[in-house]
């Protein structure tokens, strides 16, 4: 087991985060080949079935199997969350690097640009994109990716600047590293802890944003199973069938919590000073 994985596993929250995220990914993978029922098949006679065999989580108002819908919806969630994560990483790192490591007028321009972009809520970005390309999951990915990429840049840029001005970066250059080698070996690894937390948070919010934007009609279409659409469908009947609305809500909660906890423990795993604090009790002091 690699060191970072062992460190994540050693804490209860890290273990929960890892299991939750891996589980959701597995469910999404399985749903590509198998779900208990066809998630889009309506069955009018079997409407609002209570959780029981063969509908383990019951059925909705058109008789669709909720477990199958949630399994298929996991696909959408993983797709949006990973997609938004990739876009946010590219946007965030690019803006942070340009805003921290280049010549002065470029740095200042980027800083202003980030401040301007941060004023645009994700929803506005989504509306702008969907007015051009129409509503789809890609709109959610681009909107959340750009919106949170800017957020990542805002937090990572000063951190990158701080690390860049520290002596060990100078020492790395003095040992003969070129500027780009220095970036990969000393600069980026040192902002990784801050970046990872931001990224995991963005991916978690992407799950929520997909639910919200799909609800408003900018995201998944009605034929694509999505937790957000399922939740908005079922919550209209919350007073009559309160149990059914719990399942998509629970799925979203577990995923968001799992991503956040995994991000937190990943940060601890990449920062040796944090591990030391935990192990300090039994580490003897070394005297020069």
């Amino acid at each position, binding site marked *: 087991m690699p060191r970072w994985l062992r460190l994540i596993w050693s804490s209860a929250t890290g273990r929960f985060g890892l299991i939750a995220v891996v589980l959701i990914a597995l469910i999404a993978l399985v749903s590509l080949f198998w779900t208990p029922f066809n998630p889009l098949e309506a069955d009018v006679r079997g409407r609002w079935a209570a959780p029981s065999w063969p509908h383990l989580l019951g059925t909705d108002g058109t008789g669709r199997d909720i477990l199958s819908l949630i399994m298929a919806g996991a696909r959408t969630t993983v797709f949006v969350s990973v997609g938004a994560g990739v876009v946010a990483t590219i946007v965030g790192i690019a803006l942070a690097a340009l805003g921290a490591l280049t010549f002065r007028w470029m740095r200042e321009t980027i800083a202003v640009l980030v401040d301007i972009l941060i004023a645009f809520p994700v929803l506005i970005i989504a509306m702008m994109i969907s007015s051009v390309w129409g509503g789809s999951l890609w709109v959610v990915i681009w909107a959340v990716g750009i919106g949170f990429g800017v957020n990542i840049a805002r937090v990572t840029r000063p951190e990158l600047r701080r690390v860049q001005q520290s002596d*060990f970066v100078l020492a790395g250059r003095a040992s*003969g590293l070129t500027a780009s080698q220095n970036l990969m070996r000393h600069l980026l690894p*040192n902002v990784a802890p801050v970046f990872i937390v931001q990224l995991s948070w963005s991916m978690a919010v992407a799950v929520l944003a997909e639910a919200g934007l799909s609800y408003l009609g900018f995201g998944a279409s009605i034929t694509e199973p999505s937790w957000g659409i399922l939740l908005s469908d079922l919550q209209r009947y919350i007073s009559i069938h309160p149990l059914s609305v719990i399942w998509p809500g629970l799925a979203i909660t577990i995923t968001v919590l799992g991503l956040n906890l995994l991000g937190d423990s990943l940060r601890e795993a990449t920062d040796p000073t944090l591990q030391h604090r935990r192990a300090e009790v039994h580490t003897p002091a070394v005297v020069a």
Partner: protein
Amino acid sequence: MSLVVQDLIVEIDGRRVIDGVSFEVPDGARLGLIGESGSGKSVTALAILGLLPDGATANGSIRWDGTELIGMPDRELARFRGDDIGIVFQEPRTALNPIRTVGRQISESVRIHTGIGKREARQRAIEEAARVHLPDPETIVDKYPHQLSGGQRQRVAIAMALACRPRLLIADEPTTALDVTIQAEVLSLLLSLVEEHGMSLMFITHDLAVLAQVATYGVVLEDGRVIEHAPVSTLLTAPASPITQGLLRDATATLWRPEGGDA
């Protein structure tokens, strides 16, 4: 392998911080660069390595072994850094990367300049750690900087600078951040290694008492200009400029406290 600095002018954001500095470090010489803080000592060192902060421009001439370094593309300069010219910085707390093991940092320059493999690099790091008298080199190379004391970290920084056996070592106030007993140990270690390899030393300090221990020739800087240069013995016995006299007073104040004076 001599270093010749001629009429060096450094401007940072249009402000002239080095104004026509010239000196020479012949092969095997031990030169001291002394001055108060803000006199341009560290900037001179960074100019030699081509690592001035952005917004800074260097003019004049810096020749290493006959090769002009000013105006050389960064990629070519990188070949000299660490391999020919090594540097030890002032602050051991920040001079080491907090998230890389000590061993990887010691062997970094060797890996860059010779391209040896990971296992070989680790072995080399252990040898280098032993040379600077770090305790238990086999285990210390796997530790992180925050697990080391200040003196140990400065030894690591020295090992990093010397790993490639540079011909010139620049030491930028390497003992200033350490307490007095550790200072003496680190100084004598530095001197013995410099002597052992017959390398040249350029030692930067604000303390004439330290300079007297390490260097044979001193260059006194003030406001980016050389105001006095002489053998260290002359600086100590017959300082010509008021700045040097002031530095000497400060040094003697720490060396010979009047007896019976209140503590």
